[in-house]
């Protein structure tokens, strides 16, 4: 089939500190197609679409839109050029009506004698939403709508705007549109997208491969910032896609596998029938002393929430947690600290550190009680304790009194780890410990993780890539849609291949 390209990307490149997000490849988007983008987290799909709609700008390469070099500066420009993104959480204003949201900032079309003709606005809104299969009064305030309905409002708005600006064949980008929808709504969404396709190109990003294979005309597979291959709907098979997604087998040692050891017999933490409504079903598992357990699953699988429940930042509905055989009650982070559980969050700057405070204060955050003399904090003791742990974790900083905001990502992460070690944590939850950290510092963190495990501490980790999960852990727990679906052993001499594991994840 000879199709006309709406978007042509030539040798497109984008890098962020420490990561080459897009490595430079050619890529086209054609008229009237539904294009599925697949790849692991961090494969570059999101970066790609953010370049399309102007949120990011490519470092290298060229972006042609309808045959001309793109002049898109920001998402607002992109909308005027007929490139729009429908966000997962939706970006309708919660306090405006459907009609007001649809025409926001372009109300002037409905102006007569200086005043808006609200009746006309509502009438137009009614017709537009009807085309999307949305039969709700246009005067409904948007916070009353379901996520599916909000999506429809946004799609209508983007289509209407591209018409208003006279742009043929707009490009709609849908980032994980189905995670917030019910099954029936998903079917409805795709039925409508197939209609919309007649006048637009649709880019679909989804972790649910079944959905992509079933609904896309063309599927593009990304891996580590590179465009791997594409296939038509007829050629597409889930197994084949999975193969491309994970790519090469692990060849050499990346994750210090030789330092991995067999955990102790003694169980440190036991979770029994823990559940949280809407996030995960009753889950039970044990973590031994000195064991590294990796929790694997997609966004929305419930793994994040499970970790938060153990760390005390969220509260589970039901179930028990016991430590060294004794049942404990963890209702708040304070409890988890008391039981020597540590949580190293994904967002270091927001949740892990007080970035405007110095190293000493951050490292001592949990142990101020210990550093008192005559009831007051003793600066000498503070400095001693912090220096000891900073040395231990190889933090590199100009001085112990430097602000944490000025440290590199890797060093910040080490400060967070020092903080928990100084509090004598016996169990650490590491939420994406190497996110945004350069290769050298990554290896130091891997080494640290191994060392902790060898000291008999237990770790629960969630990693950026499946390879990292497999490489680091003794055992993987795989979660999907709120259920613990599989448990995979990962001994250092017989690591499973990512290809074999990914099937149970997606």
């Amino acid at each position, binding site marked *: 089939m000879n199709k006309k390209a709406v978007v042509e990307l030539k040798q497109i490149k984008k890098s962020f500190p420490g990561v080459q997000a897009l490595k430079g490849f050619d890529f086209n988007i054609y008229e009237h197609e539904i294009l599925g983008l697949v790849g692991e987290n961090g494969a570059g799909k999101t970066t790609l679409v953010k370049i399309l709609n102007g949120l990011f700008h490519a470092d290298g390469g060229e972006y042609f839109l309808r045959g001309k070099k793109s002049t898109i500066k920001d998402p*607002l420009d992109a909308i005027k050029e007929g490139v729009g993104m429908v966000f997962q959480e939706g970006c309708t*204003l919660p*306090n*405006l009506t459907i009609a007001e949201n649809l025409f926001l900032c372009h109300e002037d079309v409905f102006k007569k004698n200086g*005043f808006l003709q609200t009746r006309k606005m509502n009438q137009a809104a009614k017709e537009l939403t009807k085309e999307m299969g949305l039969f709700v009064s246009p005067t409904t305030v948007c916070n009353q709508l379901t996520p599916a309905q909000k999506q429809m409002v946004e799609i209508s708005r983007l289509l209407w705007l591209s018409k208003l600006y006279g742009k043929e064949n707009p490009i709609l980008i849908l980032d994980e549109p189905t995670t917030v929808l019910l099954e029936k709504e998903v079917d409805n969404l795709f039925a409508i997208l197939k209609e919309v396709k007649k006048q637009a190109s649709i880019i679909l990003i989804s972790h649910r491969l079944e959905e992509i294979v079933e609904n896309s005309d063309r599927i593009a597979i990304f891996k580590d910032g590179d465009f791997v291959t594409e296939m038509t709907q007829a050629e597409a098979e889930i197994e084949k896609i999975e193969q491309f997604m994970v790519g090469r087998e692990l060849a050499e040692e990346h994750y210090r596998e030789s330092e991995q050891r067999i955990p102790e017999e003694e169980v440190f933490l036991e979770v029994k029938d823990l559940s949280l409504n809407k996030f995960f079903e009753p889950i039970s598992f044990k973590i031994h002393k000195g064991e590294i357990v990796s929790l694997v699953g997609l966004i929305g699988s419930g793994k994040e929430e499970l970790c938060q429940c153990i760390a005390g930042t969220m509260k589970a509905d039901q179930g028990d947690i016991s430590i060294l055989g004794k049942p404990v009650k963890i209702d708040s982070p304070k409890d988890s600290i008391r039981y020597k559980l540590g949580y190293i969050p994904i967002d270091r700057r927001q949740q892990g550190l007080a970035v405007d405070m110095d190293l000493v204060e951050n490292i001592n955050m949990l142990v101020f009680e210990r550093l008192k003399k005559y009831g007051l904090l003793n600066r000498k003791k503070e400095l001693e304790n912090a220096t000891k742990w900073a040395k231990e974790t190889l933090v590199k900083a100009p001085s112990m009194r430097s602000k944490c905001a000025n440290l590199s990502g890797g060093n910040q992460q080490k400060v967070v780890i020092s903080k928990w070690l100084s509090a004598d944590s016996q169990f650490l939850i590491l939420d994406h410990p190497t996110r945004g950290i350069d290769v050298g510092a990554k290896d130091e963190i891997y080494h640290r993780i191994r060392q902790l495990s060898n000291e008999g501490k237990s770790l629960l980790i969630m990693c950026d890539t499946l390879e990292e999960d497999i490489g680091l852990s003794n055992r993987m727990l795989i979660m999907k849609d709120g259920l613990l679906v599989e448990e995979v052993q990962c001994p250092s001499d017989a690591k499973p291949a990512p290809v074999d594991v990914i099937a149970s994840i997606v």
Partner: protein
Amino acid sequence: MKVIQKFKGYYSKYSVSGQILSLLIVALIFSIGTKGNYLNPKNIQTILGLAGIPIILCLGVHQVIIMGAMDLSMEGIIALSAVVSGFLIKNPHTSFDVGFWIFPIVMSIGGIAGMGNGIINTKLRMPSFITTLGISWAMFGLAVLISGGISIPIRDLRFQSIMNGEFLGIPWITIIALLAFAILFIIQRYTSLGKHMYAIGGDEILAKQAGVNVSKVKIIIFSITGALYGLAGLFLVARLNSSAARLGNNTLFPAMTAVAVGGVSLSGGVGGALNAVLGTIIVVALNNGLVLMQVNPYAQSAVNGIVLISAVAMTINRKKIGLIK
């Protein structure tokens, strides 16, 4: 309990059913308390007359609150407007006599001060809370400086007649306040400025992404608000037939209470001009009732404080605020 549910479920952004219900409850309680005196036509006229200036002030401040910002500059702008009025209308201290030209003059003074609020807030990216508090004190200081801290009697009696006079039994000041209401009502419902104001209150970042010129809208709204304060300053002078910088004192608290009681959410995006008017009438009616029942003035103050906190508790959107600071 049902009333609270009604308050909390303000899905429509203009809903006033809770306010009408509250007004009826206030009326009922005081009618019983005063054995019917409360609802006689003379007292209703009094309430409407008393509500005139507070309605203008509340109409001003509520727009800023709809945008999710805060405006505390009321007392300072009133002070400046009052002192300028004192010197420009016929008076024993100066030879000026601008007559009714004083209306555009005080509205411009207020408007410029309000524009200052808007520009500092958006261009210098200062929190509106601090900006407007600072402007308020600066304006108050300027007013005291100009007037030398004295009261200035007004020799043009037409102004007092605006405050005393009535038309078809309704005080003129009330009619002017309702006119201001009508203009804001139309702006809010039938202009893009109004729509954008709500969009900013709903979510400033999303509004910006949708193409709303946030700075422009904020500066315009702050200016309109300032102009209304200026106007109210002039009426306060007219009521006393004398001008002084302290005329604005103790106007902020009742206006804030009225905004909250009217159902304008302090978290922004919800409420409208009708809420502001009804909120003010409720607060004025409540205070009038307490006076008629000869409640101790200190107890009245306590009642107002409690009313403010309860009203905010019922209308604030805690989900949106996240951290309570």
